[in-house]
């Protein structure tokens, strides 16, 4: 189920690429029984949570790609898939063009290139260890420095990269002695220690105080520009994505519904879900009353709707939306949206896998097997 993904002209080859990445989690225990406890187990396929379904994404050097979506849209699972922390149900991960395979030794090698920063720096740092210890671990684990002056120099250098200077004022401090912003900088420094080329940041500022969020976002921007890092920025805050990111990818119910240049996606959103998100976002400049087009909650991840998953809320839903999964239609230069509204004049493909009438673009993807139907 691989489709050729054409290069957008201005982009460098991707460092990390996801092709049709899918993750289904088995539902166990009482939730799986779901009131049907008396029914025999063999009655149907085991229910699964469609956390991420057929997501294609590419991270290129010196670019920030933001993944925007509500809670439960699968954005954190996507980050964990890209970090190699969970094994995909289907799909491929390519690092520098080569498929990533499982295995402990490969895992360490992969971690040298792809590092992750988590949401909560209060939880991701160990309260009984000081900054020096936290930052010495990546050097030791990856055999990059021995204890002593060499290690200290390297720790000082990495603290400098996240603007925690003078380094020796910080490295004997414990997490509780640091502010939230400083803690998140230590977490970023820890990720930078192994000189990764890809940084996956999962909601890196949402736990921080408002006045210091921009400082951390600007740091990520600097790392992109100075060190040419490929950065994935996961957030629920579309305004911050617009500020920091080069590309915005919008996820809904485990799928990518729209992607494109950050300003273009936020200024002329093509997918009804992106339009809904933008109309709901806080906006002091708003002069007209809010009209939310698409109330209601996201669908069940266990039995998602057939066709387009947004159709149950979509104000424009048509017959075809229930029948076929919308492919990514072009909505502008490097801007695609998986919505049949843009497919006017395009005949839907006769069968999955056949050549399409429209150009394949970044983020394009084949029709997935009808996993939603199976579980009805």
């Amino acid at each position, binding site marked *: 189920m691989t489709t050729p993904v054409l290069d957008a002209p201005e982009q460098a080859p991707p460092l990390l690429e996801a092709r049709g990445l899918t993750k289904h989690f088995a539902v166990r225990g009482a939730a799986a029984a779901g009131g049907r406890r008396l029914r025999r187990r063999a009655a149907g396929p085991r229910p699964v949570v469609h956390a991420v379904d057929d997501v294609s994404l590419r991270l290129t050097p010196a670019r920030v790609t933001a993944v925007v979506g*509500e*809670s439960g849209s699968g954005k954190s699972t996507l980050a964990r898939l890209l970090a190699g922390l969970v094994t995909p149900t289907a799909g491929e991960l390519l690092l520098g063009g080569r498929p990533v395979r499982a295995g402990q030794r490969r895992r360490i090698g992969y971690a040298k290139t792809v590092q992750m920063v988590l949401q909560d720096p209060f939880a991701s740092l160990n309260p009984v260890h000081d900054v020096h210890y936290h930052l010495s671990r990546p050097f030791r684990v990856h055999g990059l420095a021995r204890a002593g002056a060499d290690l200290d120099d390297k720790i000082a250098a990495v603290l400098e990269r996240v603007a925690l200077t003078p380094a020796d004022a910080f490295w004997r401090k414990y997490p509780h002695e640091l*502010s*939230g*912003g*400083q803690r998140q900088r230590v977490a970023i420094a820890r990720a930078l220690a192994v000189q990764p080329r890809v940084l996956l940041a999962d909601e890196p500022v949402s736990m921080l*105080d*408002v*006045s*210091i*969020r*921009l*400082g951390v976002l*600007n740091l990520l921007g600097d790392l992109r520009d100075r060190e040419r890092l490929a950065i994935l920025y996961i957030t*629920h805050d*579309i*305004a*911050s994505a*617009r*500020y920091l990111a080069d590309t915005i990818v919008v996820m809904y119910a485990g799928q990518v519904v729209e992607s494109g240049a*950050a*300003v273009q996606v*936020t*200024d*002329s*959103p093509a997918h009804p879900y*992106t*339009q*809904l*998100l*933008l*109309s*709901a*976002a*806080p*906006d*002091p*400049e*708003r*002069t007209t009353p*809010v009209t*939310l087009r*698409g*109330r209601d*909650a996201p669908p069940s991840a266990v039995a998602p709707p057939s066709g387009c998953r947004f159709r149950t809320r979509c104000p424009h839903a048509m017959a075809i939306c229930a029948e076929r999964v919308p492919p990514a239609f072009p909505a502008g230069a490097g801007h695609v949206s998986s919505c049949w509204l843009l497919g006017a004049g395009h005949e839907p493909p006769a069968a999955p896998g056949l050549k399409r009438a429209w150009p394949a673009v970044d983020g394009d993807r084949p029709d997935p097997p009808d996993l939603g139907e199976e579980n009805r």
Partner: protein
Amino acid sequence: MSGAGHGAPLLEIRGLCVDYGQGAAAVHAVTDADLVLHRGEVLGLAGESGSGKSTLAMAATRLLRPPGVITDGGVRLYPEDGTVVDLLEAGYPALRVLRWSEVSLVLQSAMNALNPVLTVRAQLTDALAAHLPHMSRRQRNARAVELLEMVGINGDRLTSHPHELSGGMRQRVMIAMALALQPQVVIMDEPTTALDVVTQREILEELKDLRDRLGFSILFITHDLSLLIEIADSIAVMYAGRLVERAPATALFRAPRHPYSLGLLSSFPPLHGPRAPMTGIPGSPPDLRALPSGCVFHPRCRFAVGRCAADAPPLEAAGGGRLAACWRLHGDGPVPPELAAPEPDLTSRPPASRSTP
């Protein structure tokens, strides 16, 4: 959203000081806070975590738990019947009557605020039974259904337990509970912070409708200043336990007077217009156990002058119906141009450049 023309004061807080702990180890969580909530008004209280905004609301309603201590000040409630109630002097029997029927509360985490082992019905009818003992069970049930439907939840959800509801529905149940006895003052402490933006917006819209219909006043506490500007009539900004500015919402957005308000506003990237680098505020919020001298904001303030480190500025009138506490506004020298943006015309908000989706 009318900037002016609000009714008489409803809840008046004067010189309120709150400490956590006592003696030399006391942490001054709120210092000398003056705040007035008018009838029919949505008053926003903005600030970062630790700025004292929740403490202020809890103390004003006498819900503060030890080791919190109110050390000074006064809080007055003006119920509709023309009486004046001194909330800090009121005894517990009097408070029991006032709570819920005059002042109610909506908290952030609806999962923690609702009892997980009781049904929605039990929790909704509890306050009715306590305050209106003459109501029959049937009447209470009918009122509970009415309340649920008022916040957009089907009445058959009465038999649900909190875990069977989505986050947005739980928060709606909290709002229904808060409105059960038609209070005059509803205090909302980060009521939508844990929710997704679409759900947040739905609830805020409903809240606006309910307010128009029922006529209560809201003290809306949040760290999200960009949201507050949209929904509040006026906004008070807190920093390290002190109120630093109070202004009509549009005036605060278009022409902030306090450097902290300015910094906070430039911490929210805009949804429109060209992208420009923004700086936020350098440094981090102070430790309340070791507050800076003088103006508590001066170590992070780019406009600070010598006097700022020495004396604390008073909260004084700064034009346009607002108050601000900054020496650069009522000192001797010229006001920095960044803090002297022209007063916006509050009657007509200029149309913002905005592409419609």
